[in-house]
């Protein structure tokens, strides 16, 4: 199918095991390394959430196995409050950084961005390798925080994934979980920032400079637009977190006062009167929140944009239809990326920052709902008049749209400063962001896994297991996270290790149990996915080069793609990325590499004119 008039010499893969699989410069190997890292990290994060649910629903229960595994954190099998809070912190940190930021971008983006634009590799293969291994070191350090937390009763720091100062800045004096674990937590995130920066530079350069002949920007698959915008967000936001993290570490270790104000009196000790608590003066706790959320809000979009890209890509493929409103989709991705930098203050409406800035942040926050809605309309538009093929990948992509709506829509509540007075820091926030940035992003990744697995490994994943996985997970995540919204209305605060102390929370007990049961079932179901993944590597049905009858460049090369992606033959692109159901074409899909002049070309915009 590919044009063959551009044969250049082939790049052979390295021969040694270490250069081929460990310190590889091949973006495909690096992509798989990122995915494996995320698969390991998500297992840790998921088990932590299971332990949290056990404690919330059945507080004070003796879980003998916990007593054996964590004699400090769960003496006699009953969890300590600080043990619970360290689970909260580590669950959030591991999920946000090492799962939601690695797999969608570092994993699938690394593997498929160069192939989809017709490049032989990333622009800077060495930086790419460094970016993975730096991230890997970050992961080792965060795991170290579990084992060397500085307090035997915790498995990490207890500041939450947001690490608000001064709790995170004061050290041991502020209680258990503020010792070595917090240092390791900060160092891990700082390392992660560096790794992500290298990755982001690579993505941007590769996409701008290495597109093959004919691959104009508006002929790129929407996945590439999403990965590109994500990389720009990472490039601009991670340095701020890195800076903030360094300042926080200095406050803890060097006695500086960036985030610690004067006159603090902690655990019976006045600042400056005891060697355990040196003199601090002049710092601002709110400064940390600004730095953190200036990164933290774009981070939400870093997590979800690649899922949006994959969903658009997969919906079009299995709807057998061009993406509805391709150009609007591109603009919406840009608008989300741009506005994503101006809304961080909505995390801080009641933090004590100026109430006037809350007015601006509130209006900007609701504005970001507009491009999000535009994307949803276009996804539904893509399904209109389709001939849908219900593969596991397609089910998860449709699930993504459903969850993105369900989770995103409550942003209209949380984005209003006045409504934040009752709902801030309650379970409605948990329901909101877990659905939209957590589960929707994960659905995007599941869809991507079922979709691209045959290309990456030459075999299909088992469809029946994939569908069982989808049905239970789809129902399960709704059952977990929708009830959290009403818990928030009742007033249930986040980050409580028990709800036993308050009368106003008693009526929620049945709902808390319901959520935990749903969580246990949903978590158990994920092992079907793990099993399917491993089983299919060896026993899956063999897949050809283009098993889904798709149109973009990754399907024009061999399965699995050779070391230099196109075996030395650089492809030429003749049309937009989603030319399905073209009237008069011999097949219902026309690949980007097909030169046939009879087929109407171009992307949505051009086609729409005539």
């Amino acid at each position, binding site marked *: 199918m590919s044009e063959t008039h551009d044969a250049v010499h082939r790049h052979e893969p390295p021969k040694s095991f270490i250069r081929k699989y460990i310190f590889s410069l091949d973006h495909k190997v690096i992509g798989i390394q990122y995915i494996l890292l995320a698969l390991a990290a998500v297992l840790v994060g998921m088990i932590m959430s299971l332990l949290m649910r056990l404690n919330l629903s059945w507080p004070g229960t003796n879980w003998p196995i916990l007593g054996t595994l964590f004699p400090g954190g769960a003496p006699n099998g009953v969890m300590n409050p600080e043990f619970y809070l360290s689970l909260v912190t580590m669950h959030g940190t591991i999920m946000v950084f090492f799962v939601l930021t690695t797999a969608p971008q570092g994993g699938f983006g690394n593997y498929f961005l160069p192939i989809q634009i017709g490049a032989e590799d990333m622009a800077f293969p060495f930086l790419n390798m460094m970016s993975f291994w730096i991230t890997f070191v970050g992961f080792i350090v965060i795991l170290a925080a579990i084992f060397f937390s500085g307090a035997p009763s915790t498995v990490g720091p207890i500041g939450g994934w947001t690490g*608000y100062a001064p709790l995170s800045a004061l050290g041991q004096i502020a209680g258990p979980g503020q010792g070595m674990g917090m240092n390791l937590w900060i160092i891990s995130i700082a390392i992660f920032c560096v790794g992500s920066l290298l990755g982001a530079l690579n993505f941007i350069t590769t996409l701008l400079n290495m597109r093959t002949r004919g691959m104009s920007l508006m002929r790129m698959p929407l996945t590439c637009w999403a990965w590109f915008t994500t990389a720009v967000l990472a490039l601009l936001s991670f340095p701020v977190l890195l800076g903030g993290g360094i300042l926080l570490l200095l406050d803890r270790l060097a006695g500086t006062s960036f985030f610690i104000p004067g006159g*603090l009196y902690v655990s019976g000790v006045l600042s400056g009167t005891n060697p355990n608590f040196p003199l601090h003066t002049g710092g601002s706790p709110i400064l940390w929140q600004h730095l953190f959320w200036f990164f933290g809000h774009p981070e939400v979009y870093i997590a979800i944009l690649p899922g949006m890209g994959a969903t658009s890509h997969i919906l079009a493929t299995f709807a057998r239809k061009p993406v509805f409103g391709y150009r609007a989709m591109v603009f919406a991705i840009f608008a989300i990326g741009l506005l994503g930098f101006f809304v961080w203050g909505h995390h801080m409406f009641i933090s004590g920052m100026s*109430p006037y800035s809350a007015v601006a942040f509130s209006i900007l926050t609701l504005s970001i709902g507009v491009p999000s809605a535009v994307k949803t309309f276009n996804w539904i538009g893509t399904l209109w008049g389709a001939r849908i093929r219900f593969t596991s990948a397609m089910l998860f992509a449709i699930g993504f749209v459903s969850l993105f*709506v369900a989770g995103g829509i409550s942003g209209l509540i949380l984005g209003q400063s006045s409504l934040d007075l009752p709902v801030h820091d309650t379970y409605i926030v948990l329901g909101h962001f877990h659905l939209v940035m957590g589960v929707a992003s994960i659905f995007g990744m599941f869809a991507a896994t079922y979709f691209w697995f045959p290309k990456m490994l030459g075999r299909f994943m088992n469809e029946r297991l994939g569908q069982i996985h989808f049905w239970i997970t789809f129902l399960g995540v709704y059952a977990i996270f929708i009830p959290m919204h009403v818990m928030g209305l009742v007033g249930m605060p986040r980050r409580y*290790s028990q709800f036993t102390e308050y009368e106003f929370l008693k009526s929620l007990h049945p709902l808390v149990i319901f959520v935990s049961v749903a969580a246990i079932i949903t978590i158990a179901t994920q092992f079907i996915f793990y099993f399917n993944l491993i089983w299919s590597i060896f026993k899956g049905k063999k897949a050809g080069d283009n098993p889904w009858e798709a149109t973009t460049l990754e399907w024009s090369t061999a399965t699995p793609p050779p070391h230099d992606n196109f075996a030395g033959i650089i492809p030429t692109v003749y049309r937009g990325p989603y030319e399905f159901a073209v009237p008069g074409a011999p097949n219902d899909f026309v690949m980007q590499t097909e030169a046939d002049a009879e087929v109407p070309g171009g992307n949505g915009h051009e086609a729409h004119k005539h």
Partner: protein
Amino acid sequence: MGRVLAVLIWIVTLASVILFVSKKWWFPPAISAHAPALDRQFLITILVVGVAFTAAEVGLGWMVWKYRDTVSGRATYTHGSNRLEVVWTVVTAVVFIALAVMGQSVWAQLRLHDAPAGAFQVEVVAQQFQWNFHYAGKDNVFGRTDPALIDDSALNFVGLDESDPSAKDDAVTAALAIPVNRPVELRLRSKDVIHSFWVPPLRFKQDLVPGMEIKVHFTATQVGKYELACAELCGQLHFKMKSYMLVLPEDEHRALTALPQAQFQARMQELLNKYQLPQY
């Protein structure tokens, strides 16, 4: 399979909507002057949210039902419609931004304006897992406080300077007592880490940030006893950093706050026993 998926999407949509509409779990009955306006804004918002959510999910389900791959022939070849893009962009922009602008009125009333004159003032000093409320006493002047004078072991939790004449009639207690139907101004401070003042029926929450004094105001409209919780993670025992807010009839409140420290404490305890929490 398309039909199963469509029905499933509709079922979870219906279940989600029922969970909200049934109001089995909902905001507690409100007890503040700003709450009716806030609740109205919430109702308008949740209506928009509910309609948009239902429309999108039902629409998604309908596409999945209708366009499953059973019909022969190819899908409709279209790249979209610029007119539709403009229409839905403009409509959502107008609705969303209108919501945001409408929501500002409650916010402005509470946060952009100072407390009305004659508001009852209380200094709130939070510390890890404990609330301290500092009352000015009969002279309506707060005694001087200084972090250097804080001594938890001597029960001087807020660092009150006993040598200051205006401190003589001050009282510090572990619960908050405010008058009904009179504006209250809280001056929020923290001794150690960030805490958050949270009384659900009051529809009111504000962080207490070390190094800052944050002034906020509200008016409570229902006499009674209410639970006061910390809403910002403050350490190990965050989950039981609990106190009570007593909303008292004006005369009962005036009598209480005129008492010197020792009797103030005893009377506060009596009042905490006298009033019952609302039935949840």
